[in-house]
Structure formats: structure tokens, C-alpha cells
């Protein structure tokens, strides 16, 4: 019934449990690292580093725990990217007001 070009036959990816444990270890290390590094004075880079680490962690979860790396489904990535893009639109366009309210 359904159109076959769109239906990629789903050969499921089964990760090894050792790999999942490795991912877990990386995430835990990153968590401790981000907590520790926040107490080191990096100037404005404290926030940058914290968000960078958070983004890496989020990407790792999305790619490996949520299997986005292995899916042949293009829509998953499209949905994810469009939602993040829309969020950025909200943030950037709102800030276009707040960051220029004070300018002469």
C-alpha cells in the first residue's frame, strides 16, 4: 500500500552493550568536567565552555542512545533540525529587540 521509495526497510541497529557503557562513561566524565570547570575563571568563556560541553553531551545522546546515527530515515534529522532552527529564530529575533533597545 505504502509507497516503497519512502519506506526504507528497517534493518535495525543493535549496539553492543560495551559500547553503551562507553557512551555512559563519556557522559559522566563530561558532567564532572563541566561542574569542575565552572569553578575555574575563564572569563566569558565559562559560559561558552559549559554550553559547548552540554551540546556535545546532547549530541552524543541523540546520535547513539537515540540511534539517530544509524537511522536511514532522513525525516528524523529534518524534524530535529527544524525544531532547533525554529527555537533559534525565537531566540535571535527576540534578542534583536532586547539587544538594540539601548542603542542610540
Amino acid at each position, binding site marked *: 500500500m505504502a509507497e516503497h521509495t519512502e519506506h526504507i526497510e528497517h534493518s535495525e541497529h543493535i549496539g553492543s552493550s560495551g559500547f*553503551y557503557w562507553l557512551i555512559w562513561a563519556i557522559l559522566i566524565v563530561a558532567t564532572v568536567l563541566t561542574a569542575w570547570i565552572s569553578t575555574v575563571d575563564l572569563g566569558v568563556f565559562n559560559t561558552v565552555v559549559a554550553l559547548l560541553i552540554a551540546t556535545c553531551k546532547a549530541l552524543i545522546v541523540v546520535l547513539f542512545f537515540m540511534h539517530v546515527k544509524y537511522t536511514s530515515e532522513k525525516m528524523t534529522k529534518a524534524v530535529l533540525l527544524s525544531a532547533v532552527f525554529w*527555537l533559534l529564530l525565537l531566540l535571535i529575533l527576540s534578542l534583536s529587540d532586547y539587544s538594540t533597545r539601548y542603542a542610540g
Partner: protein
Amino acid sequence: MLEHEDRPELRHHFADVVQQRNAASLGMWWFLGTEIMFFGGMFCGYLVYRRAYFPEFAAGSRSLSLVAGTVNTAVLICSSLTVALAVRASQLGKRKLLVNLLLATMFFGVCFLGIKGYEWHDEYEHHHAPTFYFNAQDLVHNNPNLHMDPQRTKIFFSLYFALTGVHALHMIVGIGIFSVITFMAWRGKFTPEYHTPIEIAGLYWHFVDIVWIYLFPLLYLIDRRPGA
């Protein structure tokens, strides 16, 4: 491709299980897209006010417990691991392992809520909860170097409670979903061929984890530099 009669889980309006599974997974991904925007509204408020009231946000952030925040992040990461392993167990058809991993996930979820509840209680005791009794005068004494208006830290705590509260609500919903799924797994409803509900619920759980991965630095780690 299997016929309708062979697959009791196949709903009448789908042609085959692949179509059904793809539909469910796409539906969940779109729902997560919606969820990003749901938190996004609060993130927008956060960004605007953090820019305007950085010292107030820093002071509020420092009053939160770094240890509790870090431990809770770790707890959630552990729960994500058990979910990922649970999906794997269902793919391999290991029923007992699956049930145990699902139980472990819920255990971690409850742990997280316990720690979070303890923190909230603590903040409530210190009058930092953004209610009618809000008072943050103590933050002035604790942060002599920050030039801030303690009144305005209420915005930080409002956002903190709103963000963590909505996140906790998602956790509670997640635990509810997982208890149903655990029951189904225990009854042996899932097979290596059919475990879509576990995958779908897993996606949701990982998403809730990711939200916290961002909330942790945004709320707890605003400015913890010594001497600043």
C-alpha cells in the same frame, strides 16, 4: 512483509508493520520537536533576563547546590544508559533483562525526583521559592562582590522553578509511561520483531535527559568562579 493475521499488534489502517513503526517513530520525533519549543519559550525568557540581570542570576545560581545538580545529572545519564540497554534487550528478546532494566530506569527516575524534591524543599525553607513569601536578602550577604538588587533574583528563581518544575512533570509522565511498558514487558508483549513502544518511550526519556543536560549548566553553573 507479513500479513495482517500474523501480527496482532498491527492496526487495521496500516499496510504493514514497517509502515506502522515508521509512523510511530516519526510521530514521536515531531512530538519531541514540539517539546523543544515548549521549553523554548522559557529559554527565551531565561536568555533575555540573564542578559539584563547577570549579577542577580549569578547570585541565584550560586545558592543552588552544585553537588545535588551534578549528582542528578549523573543519575539521569545512568537512566538513559539503562533505557538504551533496555531497547537493546528488547531487540534481542531478553525479557528478564528487559524488565530489570526498565525497573532500573524508573528507579533512577524516582531518585532524580527525590533529589530534586529535596532541593526544592531546601529552597522553600530559605524563602527562595517564588511565592508570596519570597525573600532573597541573604543572597546579598553571601555575595558581597555582586552588585545586584535582591528583588530581581525572583526572576531567576521563577525561571528556575518553572523550568525544573516542567522538567520534573515530564519525568513523572515518563515514569508513568515506563510503568505501563514494564508491565507489558513483564507480560511478554514484546518480541525482537515488535518493540516499538519501548523505542518510542525511550526517545521521550532521552529527550527529557537532554533537557536536563542543558538545564544543569544554565541554572547551576551561571557563575561559580571563585572570588567573582
